[in-house]
């Protein structure tokens, strides 16, 4: 996904954008801290245990959850497994080539994984059938359908919405030692939300478009749990960031996370 940009055009566009930003305006008319319209549909893939299609502006992702049984890791015999995998579908952008996930797709997988894992959204300890031998494995597969910036938050919203609506056939041990299969909801504890912002000069822009990302200085993805605590973070971009700007982003993102969590809650309640 390396892009050869003409340095002249790139600079011109950046100058124009910075001029707009000095007036706190963006090319698409949003305020600096506005998200683009967010659309969440759950239950779109009936063959999965849980699924969601999410669009954030023109960026579109679909996530599907599959729950299968497997062997736990030797060092966590009493925990189920969580596997997050993101693929940038080759039709999502003219710049994506088919093939195994590149470093950018791997970064998305790992950032989403950490956000879900560290917020302790899923109670992995409840996903054990036989300690050390057989546990449930929660596969979260995210396909990016169309790219227009801020892949992280679209992928994260899709993953979280899919998990919140996941059900599966759980083996329940009966008194006589046999098993009963019961349809259960995946046990979740909170709704983690990730918020991605970029900096261009002094300005902080929430939910950047691809065009904005192309002239970004720094990018920052922060994940918050229900209490508004930070549970994961990842800096991107090839320019340093000052402490002051960083703290400002934390403040803005914390507020945005509240907004998005309400939105997700409403969708889930109406599902």
């Amino acid at each position: 996904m390396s892009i050869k940009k003409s340095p002249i055009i790139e600079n011109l566009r950046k100058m124009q954008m910075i001029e707009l930003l000095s007036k706190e305006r963006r090319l698409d008319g949003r305020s600096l801290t506005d998200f683009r319209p967010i659309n969440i549909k759950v239950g779109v893939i009936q063959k999965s245990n849980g699924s969601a299609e999410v669009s954030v502006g023109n960026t579109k992702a679909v996530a599907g959850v599959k729950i299968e049984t497997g062997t736990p890791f030797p060092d966590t015999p009493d925990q189920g497994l969580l596997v997050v995998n993101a693929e940038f579908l080759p039709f999502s952008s003219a710049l994506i080539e088919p093939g195994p996930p590149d470093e950018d797709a791997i970064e998305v997988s790992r950032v989403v994984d950490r956000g879900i894992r560290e917020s302790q959204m899923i109670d992995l300890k409840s996903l054990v059938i036989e300690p050390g031998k057989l546990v449930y494995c929660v596969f979260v597969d995210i396909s990016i359908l169309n790219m227009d910036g801020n892949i992280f938050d679209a992928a994260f919203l899709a993953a979280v919405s899919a998990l919140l609506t996941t059900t599966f056939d759980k083996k329940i041990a009966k008194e006589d030692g046999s098993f009963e299969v019961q349809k259960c909801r995946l046990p979740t504890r909170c709704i983690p939300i990730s918020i991605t912002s970029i900096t261009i000069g002094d300005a902080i822009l929430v939910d950047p478009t691809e065009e904005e990302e192309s002239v970004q200085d720094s990018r920052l993805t922060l994940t918050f749990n229900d209490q508004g605590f930070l549970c994961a973070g990842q800096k991107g971009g090839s320019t340093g960031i000052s402490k002051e700007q960083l703290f400002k982003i934390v403040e803005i993102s914390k507020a945005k996370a509240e907004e998005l969590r309400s939105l997700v809650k409403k969708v889930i309640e109406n599902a």
Partner: protein
Amino acid sequence: MIDENGIRLDGRRWDELRPIRIEVGVIKNADGSAYIEFGKNKIIAAVYGPREAHPKHIALPDRAIVRCRYHMAPFSTEERKPPQPTRREIEISLVLRRAMESAIFLEEYPRSIIDVYVEVLQSDGGSRCASITAVSAALADSGISMRDLIVGCAVGKIDGQIVLDLSDYEDKEGEGDMPVAYMPNLDKIVLLQFDGIFTEEEFKKAIDLAILGNKRVYEILKKALIEKYFGTVEEK
């Protein structure tokens, strides 16, 4: 799988199609795209191109090259499918590409490449037939010149009878499956595979039925394209 009244498990008669829904222009970044629901199949096809071939040495001086990737999402199947392409996916990519090559005016785009990507979000019986229909819609959406549209629909044999458009269960438990893709105006078959046991008579009957079914799919495809490009004032 067929009861005494000639009704199949999902309520269809022997010559009925499952419900089909086609939406054109679903992927903003692509040059052309379409989404199809065909039974429980949910498939997106999208086209990039004609664009400059890269690396250059793969280009042909007198015509376009077509590349095709048919891929199933890990969550599209009963059991999770690992993301890397299987031999089945590679073979389907190949037969889809050939079907397209028979429809596209390749010689109008020398030295260029046309990339076609198919993603199966949910799979059901007949996914390659649903895919080629979606691809054809995406190619039309992209404005690439074609001799004819292509539509696809399978036939098969269950309980000793030739029937139209097998569901997943009928495919698995039945005696034979035959995906067919077809150019309706040129009256040509552009994709044909089958397995199972067919007598010569059954084979001929199956082909006739497939063509019948494909003509119906064609009407649905035409309607979707017209809706997209000319709107449907009266019906809305």
